[in-house]
């Protein structure tokens, strides 16, 4: 039996573990994931950030801390994660 897929949530930010993602042709955006939330504070995680087909992925090499001023820290296990945001039916797509 395969191990469960990890999904991390910190406020409006979601990191969904992906196994079969080919990032060879993805564009590397940087080495830190920084996402400014609605209240102006930033979700921050040290990881390689890639974009492919309009989707953002991060590669976490070693256990890293996802931090935000107003939320408790989350330790993210090594792996590839898709970056997502919470959804809203009225707004038509993810709130990013």
């Amino acid at each position, binding site marked *: 039996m395969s191990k469960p*897929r*990890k999904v991390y949530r910190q*406020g409006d930010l979601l990191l*969904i573990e992906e196994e079969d993602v080919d990032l060879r042709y993805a564009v590397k955006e940087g080495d830190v994931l920084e996402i400014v939330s609605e209240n102006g504070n930033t979700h921050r995680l040290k990881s390689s950030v890639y974009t492919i087909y309009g989707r953002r992925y991060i590669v976490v090499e070693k256990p890293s801390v996802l931090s935000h001023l107003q939320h408790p820290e989350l330790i993210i296990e090594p792996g590839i994660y898709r970056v997502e945001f*919470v*959804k809203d*039916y009225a*707004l038509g797509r993810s709130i990013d």
Partner: protein
Amino acid sequence: MFCHIGLGRAYRRSYEFFLSDVITSSGAKKRFRDIFRVEGFLGYPLRVLVEKFKDSSIYVYRYSCREYYVFPEKFYSLFISVYNLIYALNKYYRGDVEKIFNYIDRVVEMCRDVDQCIEILSKELSYIEDLYVKRVVKGRKALTTRFKRSTERCRDVVEKFFPDLLNPYIRRYENFDELEEFLKKFFSDRVARSYRRFAELRSPILITRDGIILLVKNSQPLDNFSIYIDDCSTTRSYAITKIVGVETLNGYVYRVKWIALLGIDFYTKQLFLHYIPPTLILRKAELCRLWVLGLVDDFGRPLYEDITLIEV
């Protein structure tokens, strides 16, 4: 006048009937009026009727993949009666064609001549419409009872975390441009535009910032509008309520305008409101939350086989 009826094919060609002053195929081509069409998959009862009264047909022709039978004008009322019954049964049986066809077969078997058949079909139509109305009223009563009970059940949670919801601040607007300008004070342009579009269809709507605001068009009365709490849940990090904005008629839910998840994040002390799809109307607040997180689809089915949700 003559009544032409063109028999189509299930899922391929619709059925149609109309009046025409000619009996030839010119009727189907251009000299038709007051035309009725029945989708191909629902048209079988018309074929049954034509078979039954085939001997009364004056002329038969083929045109545009349909077989047309021409009848005297009085058959037009007969076909309208069966047309009305088909669509009433379609609503009542929720598109179950087998039940619709069996029902109409039974009715048509009782027909002896056109006038008596129209009478039978009309009686059956009012009988089915009555049943349908009774079912709808029963459903509305049941939904209203459910909402009232759950609102009472969740009253403590609302009073503790969302007291504004019990008497929200009402912001009225003259037109949607004004609403969009107002929304831009709180949200990004994209979000403001989306809320505007949502309000155009489902006004009055709620938004949250530091408090809860009900946005209502100036001309729109609020007498028949209610917000019910359908479910609630509290954990260490958040409290959520599933709320439903409804229009009422005679004290019962008449139309559900929107469904939303209103919550508070205990870490940020921030209120949040996310609208959710109408398909989740009868589902629990926690499942709706999973939809907001993108972990279940619009029907509440899990999108991933096995997950471990770690959240703060």
